[in-house]
């Protein structure tokens, strides 16, 4: 009996529940799809390091899932509470008929169960279907081969989805039961009869609050947009909190002022159905100030996360070609001031049983130097004090890295990049890390003097030149000084480099051969040394390492893909949540307003006018939080670009475009569904 009642309740209020059910299904399927990525990736041909990346991605997704579950859980509780409020009259009827609260609880329990099981089932089916497509996406993102397509179902992901959602539904059930025990018959019965009360906020107060909130936002925008370097982690949180508060007050005051402003424009206000449209809108916004704030912030986070994630991925791939022109880089660093017994890495390897030149077609050996008396602080010149004030966290007492002009040009020959030339008393500053360039440029001018190893050199250029020596995917050269060969002659090298291209076409085999050979050579060197002389004997090696294009590429592509996936995951869930909250409110408002539209028809409003009014209401309602979120994002992105510079992100246009299209698809989708559902609700013949 109870079951039948529950089922018929759901069927009857399908109109209200449809968007809730729809959202749950999307939530379940998104949850499954992302948690099943590991399983999908297993069907692909991948290298070990790519598997590691996928594994990392899986771990990160499972961590993120806890957060996502939290967001979805809150959404579900909000939605079910919202839908329950709409049924107060029905509960009142049950209670007047003598049904106990326990029974009402049981009905709600059953309803939640039916909806839960239904949405889980449908969501999982859709999720399993969608996740077949993610194989292709994973393959594309990680640049792996899709050898053969195989239909896969991830049992682990299913169990996880079911458990997480079961917990969420359980919370909803507990919550509902709690609400039922606190229901009072008199309140329930009166709940439907209360006619709408229109409270206009004090306009003066609204204007004051608006001005204050806007000023606060302006200040925060300035902080994140133009003063971002001073922001530390704690103050970033404080700025976000202050921004959230300002957002709330903007909505609060706008909801109070909006109508008055519109009302003062008499010709617009008293044109067509405008007065009705604006009133409807104003009452919606008035009751949704808090929700709108949350939605605005979620949209803001989504826009920033997605844009950053996509641009990190894009620039990762792009930089690879520019910043990693050769296959292999070996580096050995020495204790300062003590001369190595080997001329270069080639000789070191040869003497320890590995002929490194055999594995390379093209290569260069070179060294870099550092002058303990020429520090970062000295190199900045006049800009030092400014720099210290702005970037207090930098280490100003590290010696600058120096390279001989001839060595640098030899390397550029190998890299296929432009060579440099200069007079014997000049130096050239190289740097490609944007904020560092800005910092260093302040102290540079043509002829600016610096003393290196006791010699005074003049800057050839008024600014830093683009250049680097280490292969990477990021613009991370924070400063390297090219000096005339004569300046460092007789000085002890700081670091030795060996950089080159493999002779073999089988890059993976070559990488392994070089890796093994170099490793063996270093071990031999170490084994032949006596303990008194240090690990690497009289060579004074303090450390060594290597980087290869293959490693860099996989890491870069993998990192880009991980960031993109996580961004997508969080972004999708946030967008769904935002869309669902607005849609629920709008649809239930439409149900409440059926009578008003009926009325409009009776006094002769045309159907097209009514549709336009509804479209405007829904549109503005969806647009309001989006507009503020977009404005926030402009400055948020300005702040993030500062960090994205490391990844060489100069243009975020394409990733912003991609974000906008995702937003349009999901948020816009919710808008359209809401509009058409509302339209069918209000045109229903009673």
């Amino acid at each position, binding site marked *: 009996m109870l079951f039948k009642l529950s089922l018929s309740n759901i069927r009857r209020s399908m109109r209200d529940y449809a968007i809730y059910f729809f959202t749950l299904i999307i939530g379940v399927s998104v949850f499954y799809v992302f948690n099943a990525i590991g399983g999908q990736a297993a069907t692909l041909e991948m290298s070990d390091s790519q598997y590691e990346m996928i594994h990392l991605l899986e771990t990160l997704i499972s961590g993120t899932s806890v957060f996502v579950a939290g967001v979805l859980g809150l959404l579900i509780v909000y939605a079910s509470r919202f839908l329950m409020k709409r049924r107060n009259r029905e509960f009142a009827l049950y209670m007047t008929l003598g049904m106990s609260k326990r029974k009402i609880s049981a009905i709600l329990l059953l309803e939640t169960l039916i909806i839960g099981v239904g949405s889980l089932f449908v969501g999982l089916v859709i999720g399993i279907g969608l996740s077949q497509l993610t194989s292709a996406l994973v393959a594309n993102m990680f640049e792996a081969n899709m050898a053969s397509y195989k239909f896969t179902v991830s049992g682990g992901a299913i169990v996880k989805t079911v458990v997480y959602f079961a917990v969420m539904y359980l919370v909803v059930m507990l919550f509902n039961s709690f609400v039922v025990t606190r229901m009072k018959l008199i309140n329930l019965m009166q709940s439907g009869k209360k*006619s709408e009360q229109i409270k206009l906020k004090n306009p003066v107060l609204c204007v004051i609050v608006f001005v204050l909130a806007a000023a606060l936002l302006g200040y925060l925008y300035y902080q994140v947009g133009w003063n971002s370097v001073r922001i530390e982690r704690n103050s970033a949180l404080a700025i976000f909190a202050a921004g959230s508060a300002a957002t709330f007050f903007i909505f609060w005051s706008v909801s109070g002022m909006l109508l008055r402003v519109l009302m003062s424009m008499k010709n617009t206000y008293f*044109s067509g159905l*405008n007065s009705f449209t604006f*009133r409807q809108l104003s009452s919606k916004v008035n009751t949704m100030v808090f929700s709108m704030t949350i939605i605005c912030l979620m949209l803001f986070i989504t826009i920033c996360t997605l844009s950053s994630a996509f641009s990190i991925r894009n620039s990762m791939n792009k930089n690879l070609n520019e910043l990693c022109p050769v296959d292999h880089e070996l580096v050995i660093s020495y204790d300062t001031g003590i001369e190595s017994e080997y001329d270069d890495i080639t000789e070191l390897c040869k003497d320890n049983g590995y002929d490194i030149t055999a594995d390379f077609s093209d290569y260069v050996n070179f060294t870099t130097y550092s002058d303990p008396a020429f520090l970062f602080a000295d190199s900045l010149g006049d800009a030092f004090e400014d720099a210290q004030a702005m970037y207090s966290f930098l280490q100003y007492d590290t010696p600058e890295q120096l390279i001989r002009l001839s060595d640098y040009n030899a390397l550029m020959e190998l890299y296929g990049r432009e060579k440099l030339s200069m007079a014997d008393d000049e130096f050239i500053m190289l740097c490609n890390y944007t904020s560092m360039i800005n910092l260093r440029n302040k102290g540079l001018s043509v002829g600016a003097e610096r003393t290196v190893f006791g010699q005074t050199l003049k800057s050839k250029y008024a600014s830093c030149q683009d250049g680097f020596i280490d292969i990477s995917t990021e613009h991370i050269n924070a400063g390297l000084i090219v000096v005339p060969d004569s300046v460092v002659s007789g000085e002890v090298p700081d670091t030795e480099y060996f950089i080159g291209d493999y002779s073999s076409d089988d890059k993976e085999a070559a990488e392994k051969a070089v890796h093994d050979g170099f490793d063996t050579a270093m071990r031999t060197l170490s084994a032949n040394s006596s303990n008194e002389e240090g690990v690497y004997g009289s060579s004074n090696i303090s450390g060594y390492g290597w980087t290869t294009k293959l490693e860099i590429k996989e890491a870069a592509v993998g990192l880009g893909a991980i960031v993109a996936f996580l961004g997508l995951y969080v972004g999708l869930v946030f967008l769904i949540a935002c869309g669902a909250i607005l849609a629920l409110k709008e649809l239930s408002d439409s149900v409440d307003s059926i009578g008003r539209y009926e009325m409009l028809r*009776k006094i*002769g409003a*045309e159907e097209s006018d009514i549709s336009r009014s509804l479209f405007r209401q829904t549109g503005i309602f969806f647009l309001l939080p989006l507009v503020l979120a977009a404005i926030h994002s402009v400055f948020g992105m300005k702040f993030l670009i500062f960090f994205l510079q490391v990844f060489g992100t100069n243009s975020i246009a394409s990733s912003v475009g991609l974000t906008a299209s995702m937003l349009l698809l999901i948020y816009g989708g919710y808008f359209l569904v809401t509009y058409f559902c509302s339209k069918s609700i209000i045109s229903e013949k009673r």
Partner: protein
Amino acid sequence: MELLKIQQIEKYYGSKSSLTKAIDDISFTVDKGEFVAIMGASGSGKTTLLNCISTIDRVTAGHIFLEGTDVTALKGKALNKFRRDNLGFIFQDFNLLDTLTAYENIALALSIQKKSAKETDAAVKTVSEQLDIKDVLNKYPYQMSGGQKQRVASARAIVTNPKLVLADEPTGALDSKSAKLLLERFRYLNKECGATIMMVTHDSFTASYASRIIFIKDGKIFSELSRGDNTRKQFFDRIIDVVTLLGGDMSDAL
């Protein structure tokens, strides 16, 4: 001058097996400037008749002409436009938009007709004086009494200068004092402003304010009364006589 002409209209509900004749061959005419009441017991078909005239419902057979236009032939947009430009409605439950102030409720009827804000303002001012609601113009429906609400609704109905004002049980939700006040206003609108009013009611007191009464029973015209030179009291007594004749549940309305 003949304004409204009802020609042998019929309205059937239900299927062939269980047919209900809500209106069964009714014909009459209303002249310009008349104040007609239609009386009948619940279920007699009086509201159906009003709905058909107001184009909210469609007749099964017959024609309704308003100033020569056959409204039963109108469809879709033309129907909406016709209703908007020619008819004014007053409902038992006021049907004011609770989100709008009285002023805005009245103005809405004009702005739907795409009148300018200036014209609207002037018209609202005038009509609010006629209906004595100047001091509630900036109030919301929930801040007004039933009588005030109904007068605002009436103002909305006549502000567009409709050819015909249709009122469905306008006093049904009002206490007797408010009802009397409203009816005085109706008479004022009819006499001084020349509004043609057609009102459906089952209340004899309400009907006694009209200049002519059409009694309906079981979907047919049962009788008709003209006020002539009678005072309202005399007219009321004559109504009671007919109502007694009508019998049935109509007599509860005494």
